[in-house]
């Protein structure tokens, strides 16, 4: 069962919906992980492409690829990328550190998802911008039960 709550993150930011998950995390924990990362700065919906399956074959290993639109110059580049899975018991999944030598702001990994939930990606840039995007993932319910 899910309930929906809108949570505003900082003045002037886009509201992202964080749903309560079955696995013990609350939207507050996920929001706190995001707040700790962006330190009160306002977050804007930005050009972040999140590549996740629409249905994950299972919650144990879910491939995730992130691309943040950025020139990645010495002057203007992504510095950090946060990934949060709001319904996981431990919502923060990773923080990636990039620099101009990265060439592109692209990262891929494999994550664990405790339940059908939203995955939120937050990126910080060298110019002080904070951008955010979110994608829902359905975690397959297996056929034969327990």
């Amino acid at each position: 069962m899910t309930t929906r709550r809108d949570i505003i993150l900082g003045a002037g930011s886009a509201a992202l919906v964080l749903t309560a998950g079955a696995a013990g995390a609350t939207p507050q924990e996920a929001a706190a992980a995001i707040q700790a990362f962006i330190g009160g700065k306002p977050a804007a919906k930005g050009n972040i492409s999140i590549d996740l399956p629409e249905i994950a074959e299972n919650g144990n290993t879910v491939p995730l690829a992130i691309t943040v639109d950025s020139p990645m110059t010495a002057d203007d580049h992504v510095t950090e990328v946060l990934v949060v899975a709001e319904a996981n018991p431990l919502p923060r999944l990773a923080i990636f550190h990039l620099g101009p030598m990265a060439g592109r702001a692209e990262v891929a990994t494999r994550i664990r998802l405790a339940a059908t939930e939203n995955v939120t990606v937050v990126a910080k840039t060298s110019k002080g911008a904070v951008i955010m995007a979110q994608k829902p993932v359905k975690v397959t319910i297996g056929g034969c039960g327990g």
Partner: protein
Amino acid sequence: MPASIRQGVLDRPLSRAMTATVTMGLVIALAALFGVAPAAADERPGPAPLATGDASARPWKRYDGWPDRDASAFNSLANPHASPPAPTAPRRLDGPVTGDAGNGAKLVADRTRGGSCLACHVMGQAGNADLPGNVGPDLSEIGNAGLSDEQFWNYINDARVYNPSTIMPPWGAHGLFNDKEIGDIVAFLKTLKVPAKFATDVDDPAKRPAPVEKRDNLDPTTNPAMWAVDDAAALYKKRDASSGFACATCHGDPAARFSTWAAAMPRFEPRLGHVLGVEEFVFRHAKATTGANWPMESDENIAMGVYLRNLANGQPIKVDITSPDAKAAYERGRLLADTKVGELNFSCRDCHDPARGGLKWIRGQWLGEPKGQLDHFPTWRTSLNQIWDIRRRFQWCSVAIRGNELPPDAPEYGDLELYLAAVNAGRTLSVPGIRH
């Protein structure tokens, strides 16, 4: 000469073999003594030596972490007559069914009793219409279908009274639901009069796209099972502490020697009287030659099973089913694929034949058809971070449908694997696979 080559070993007619073995043993022992590497590919002609006895633990103990339910009271592939017989006629009910539809709505979504009805049926908004399956018909409007209470009740209790070849589990007759619970489910079904509304297309099994496996299973950064190939390559060369022999001692360069071997397995082994798959062969042959102890389902055995097939990747599966013994084994395998197993009373075909449940959804999981089910085994399982060989896959199928598994070297599994390999003839090996 290593004792293991003399005791409990099947080989050619004894006298000649003994002489040859002694000679070979001496040659190799002398070579080792004088630090001279034996010539590569020192294989003797004739059938491979095989250790007799069991190839896995006895008594067989189910794996840790698997449900520990004992289903001896129901069919297994070794005991296809254990389950109570189907009722001969529908049960007559005294009056209309009175049940708690609210509890029924919970029961049809309850995964602890065999997947729940939603595993196979769309049922309106039951379970939030969250990834229901479509092995069985959509029941969202079954309340308007004009079925009597007695028909509803008996269909759930044991549908075989209406359709002897049904796939429906005998929920009541096999004790998964009691009479009261069946009544609750009937009460709920009678309320179903409106098509399901799905939150997304992905929830609707009629619209959900069938999964297509696109991963590069042989890419070592994609597939953790590729580490097993390296592990086995090292095991192949490792000299056994007692015998001093390695696989390499007799077989030489593995890439050359085994470039096609695994594609012709499994095969009927006359000396054992049953079908021998790669994993069982590895155990019996290693034990009878180098002395290495790699029972089925051990890490070493699994790695060798991956390796020997990996060396034959690209080869078409081609197993013998023409010799009289192999033909009989194939026939047994074919019948085993039709044998009902477990509390849920499913045969392989019930789930995997496209004419029944195959190429349909069971909850959120796709049921594949037999073609394509073997060429990628052993496979990495992303849901478990384990490599599964085909025998473990057979074992889990039985346990998942609330039946008892057999030991991995059960002759029934050999017959079934031979049958599956014959059905998959021509498909090329690509091992290790990567799957859910």
